[in-house]
């Protein structure tokens, strides 16, 4: 399981090119006094007071504002662009043609929101005026809007090589023999929809040139990758680009790479000879900054008399927009199926393209699989948990689903669950559901940490990573303090700037596992150097010294020692410095999780309310119990939105998104939030794994199954809108 599941996540755990870590740096080599405790975010006060400066808040002297003119059509040719009316607008500074009408290679726009031109003005209001004034003549072209039409061959041929790209067929075992062994069979189609990331801070940058050197404030999940994107996109050396991101308002995968708006902003700033800020608005966010691709599968499955999934045949498809696939989901997700076949087709439609979104592929795979599992369990007349236990891979440290299902059943009151369909009279029906999830996570290099200890006792830990809201800044201080026997408040974390060195992007739940080994090793190396300085004075060898509770003392004689500040006074004028990279041995891959959901469904209105969720989740070594729990809460809410509310709705005729806002693109509010219990399983012996993505995988399926258990009918597609539930109820009747 370890090898196959490690492929499921984005994080691969890193091919161990570097030598395994010296055991003296391992997580178990010093007492964990800070790691694993509940530490409040160091930047909390800055965030709650509004002092934290996001890219959206950056103001530079003489700064101008940029705005992009975008295609209103899902597919069109740019015939002409007339900038002159914009030049008449008050405050207009400069403009840029992004798609030259004369260039046949680039003058075709492939989706609503595709970039056409851009303007700069003295204020944001004037930039909007100028953008509106630009006259663009389009020649609308036939567009593919519907996945079903594309699959049926009823859509115009838009994409080179066809609107549908067949993938390879994967096969294992003997499918025919499997179906022969099956006592019960099922033949159904399951579907998930397209959603968008809806980062609260929109994508955007502030770009400022000094000669041929660019400084860019970017709301990004990877300062280093953004720097490289600027360099290659502008054909300038990476060394000429500095990217800064101290705070960023959510990315969820959509800010791993620099979007076209970043390069446009840099070009506009160069052209204007002044700093330019270009932040997208909410509509642009929905249209062009990525989405979670849809997924669907027509599944035939067979179960033996004793409840084993003996045959599984899936034909799947999905769309990631214009020229982007959607195949990255495993079927039948975590469950074993000795005899299986899976064929996948990517469908291209004229919409903005997909980007990784929090556990790419997994929420989809989970839904397509788990609904089927409960339908099969009912056919085999088995409890859904017993049926799952029959079909899981063998238990292992990275495959704990069986244990979690049993523990959760006990904790959630699963024995009170009624069979499918709440027999209670009245319109309010109650139900329970359960689903499981996994994710790779893990660490990888390069992620170089630099530790400085000064003669005044100050400690700096510097690493070119970024805090996307998970609490990385606090982890930097915690891991360092833990190694040095200090408190996190005694450490100054320096992150969010390419000047702080090389580290990876914050994606795939890999940040903690990628950064923490280097930080710990660097801190312990610095401590070794400090111990050498004070050892003679303490009359002991450096090896015999222990750093704990703000002191360094002789292991066998606690009274013989000195305080941290006193020890640091011996450092001299040059601070102690130490660097270290990620090394194998302190991290591992693959998480397990199980989630239970309880819902109330009003079968008169179709409204679903999730009342309770229990999440059992592991992530290897828990670094900060407080912020780790927050990740799980957040993952559950994200998946609840996926299950019940959010949906990118396209107009079937025009191909335009009808809800590119936040009032009709629905997201949960406080009244929609269930009571959530989080049980985080700490596994220090596994090292750090990662947690950002795992908890957002199973909730949607658990909720959908709870709805099925409540109502007695199966909705096989998301989202579970009131209309869809009423419709299903009517079909059932």
């Amino acid at each position: 399981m370890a090898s196959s599941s490690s492929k499921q996540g984005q994080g691969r755990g890193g091919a161990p090119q570097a030598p395994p870590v010296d055991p003296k740096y391992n997580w178990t080599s010093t007492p964990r006094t800070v790691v694993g405790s509940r530490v409040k975010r160091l930047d909390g006060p800055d965030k709650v007071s509004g002092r934290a400066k996001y890219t959206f808040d950056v103001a530079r002297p003489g700064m101008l504002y940029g705005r992009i003119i975008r295609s209103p059509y899902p597919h069109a040719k740019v015939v002409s662009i007339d900038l002159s009316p914009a030049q008449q607008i008050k405050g207009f500074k400069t403009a840029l043609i992004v798609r030259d009408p004369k260039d046949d290679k680039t003058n075709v726009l492939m989706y609503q929101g595709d970039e056409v031109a851009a303007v700069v003005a003295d204020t944001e209001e004037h930039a909007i005026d100028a953008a509106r004034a630009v006259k663009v003549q389009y020649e609308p072209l036939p567009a593919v809007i519907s996945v079903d039409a594309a699959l049926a061959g009823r859509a115009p041929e838009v994409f080179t090589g066809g609107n549908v790209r067949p993938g390879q067929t994967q096969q294992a075992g003997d499918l025919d023999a499997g179906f022969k062994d099956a006592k019960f069979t099922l033949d159904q189609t399951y579907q998930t929809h397209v959603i968008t990331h809806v980062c609260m801070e929109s994508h955007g940058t502030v770009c400022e040139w000094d000669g041929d050197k660019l400084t860019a404030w970017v709301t990004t999940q990877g300062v280093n990758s953004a720097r490289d994107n600027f360099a290659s996109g502008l054909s300038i050396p990476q060394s000429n680009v500095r990217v800064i991101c101290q705070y960023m308002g959510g990315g969820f995968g959509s800010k791993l790479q620099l979007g076209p708006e970043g390069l446009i902003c840099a070009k506009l700033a160069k052209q204007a000879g002044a700093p330019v800020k270009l932040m997208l608005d909410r509509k642009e966010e929905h249209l062009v900054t990525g989405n979670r691709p849809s997924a669907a599968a027509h599944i035939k499955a067979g179960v033996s008399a004793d409840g084993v999934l003996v045959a599984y045949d899936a034909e799947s498809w999905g769309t990631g927009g214009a020229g982007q696939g959607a195949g990255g989901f495993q079927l039948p997700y975590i469950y074993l199926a000795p005899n299986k076949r899976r064929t996948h087709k990517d469908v291209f439609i004229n919409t903005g393209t997909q980007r990784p979104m929090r556990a790419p592929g997994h929420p989809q795979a989970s839904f397509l699989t788990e609904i089927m599992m409960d339908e099969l369990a009912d056919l085999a007349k088995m409890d859904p948990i017993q049926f799952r236990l029959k079909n899981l891979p063998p238990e292992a440290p990275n495959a704990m689903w069986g244990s979690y299902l049993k523990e959760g059943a006990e904790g959630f009151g699963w024995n009170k669950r009624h069979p499918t369909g709440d027999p209670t009279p009245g319109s309010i029906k109650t139900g329970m559901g359960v689903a499981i999830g996994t994710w790779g996570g893990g660490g990888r290099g390069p992620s170089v940490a630099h530790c400085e200890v000064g003669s005044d006792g100050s400690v700096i830990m510097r690493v070119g990573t970024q805090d996307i809201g998970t609490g990385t800044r606090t982890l930097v201080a915690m891991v360092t303090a833990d190694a040095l026997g200090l408190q996190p408040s005694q450490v100054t974390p320096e992150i969010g700037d390419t000047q702080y060195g090389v580290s990876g992007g914050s994606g795939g739940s890999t940040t903690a596992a990628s950064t923490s080994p280097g930080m710990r090793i660097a801190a312990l190396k610095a401590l070794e150097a400090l111990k050498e300085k004070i050892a003679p004075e303490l009359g002991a060898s450096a090896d015999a010294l222990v750093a704990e509770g703000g002191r360094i003392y002789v292991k066998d004689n606690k009274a013989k020692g000195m305080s941290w500040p006193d020890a640091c006074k011996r450092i001299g004028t040059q601070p102690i410095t130490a660097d270290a990279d990620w090394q194998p041995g302190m991290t591992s891959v693959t998480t397990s999780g199980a989630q239970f959901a309880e819902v109330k469904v009003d079968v008169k209105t179709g409204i679903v309310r999730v009342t309770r969720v229990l999440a059992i989740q592991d992530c290897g070594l828990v670094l900060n119990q407080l912020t780790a729990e927050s990740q799980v809460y957040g993952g559950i809410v994200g998946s609840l939105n996926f299950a019940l509310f959010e949906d990118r709705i396209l107009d079937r005729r025009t191909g335009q998104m009808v809800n590119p806002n936040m009032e009709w693109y629905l997201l949960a509010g406080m009244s929609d939030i269930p009571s959530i219990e989080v049980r985080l399983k700490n596994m220090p012996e596994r090292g750090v794994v990662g947690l950002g993505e795992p908890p957002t995988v199973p909730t949607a399926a658990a909720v959908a199954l709870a709805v099925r258990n409540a109502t007695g009918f199966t909705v096989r597609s998301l989202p579970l809108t009131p209309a869809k539930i009423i419709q299903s109820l009517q079909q059932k009747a």
Partner: protein
Amino acid sequence: MPKRTHEPKDKAESGFSRRNFLKTVGAGGVAAGAVLAKAPGVDAQTGAAAVGPGPVPVTLNVNGKTLRLDIEPRTTLLDALRMHLSDPMTGNKRGCDRGACGACTMLVDGRTVYACSTLAIEVQGKKIRNVDGLAENGKLHPVQQAFCDKDALMCGFCTPGFVVASVGLLEKHPNPTPEQIRKGLDGNICRCGTFSRIFEAVSSVKGVQRG
């Protein structure tokens, strides 16, 4: 999903009444009400003074301080404070720009408003409070402290709006019921999904004075 709705504004408070306009004209064209534009006119139907579209002087009372701005009448309260001050107040954010996400929530005369959907020129003469002014002498407001203590934030972009909405709620209901907390904060959206912890934080706050 329940969303907070704005109660209609009292026209008499808008600062653009016919009476105010006539008074201003009566004073020989001097902008006594501080709302008069370079090209004043009267809308034939409403009788309101037409100002703009160019910049007009606007005076705002924010966090107890008087701020004088020269902004276009279309400028929202949020944008005025974020982009048109020499010392910008960027605490409150713009998430949707349509009064749906609540990141811009400010208090105007003690009531929560979406500052992205409120014109700056309309709230002259009112007491405006935003997240930038909640801490006093470097000491966090009890609501801000509770958000930190309970980890009621992740990326933090929606947090200023939630904090101000929570202050508004607690000044109205110093000991709110769970239902009052839920309804009071339904106008704000957090994409990171911190709701459980925000609920915990707001439930834990004691001693906020009735506003």
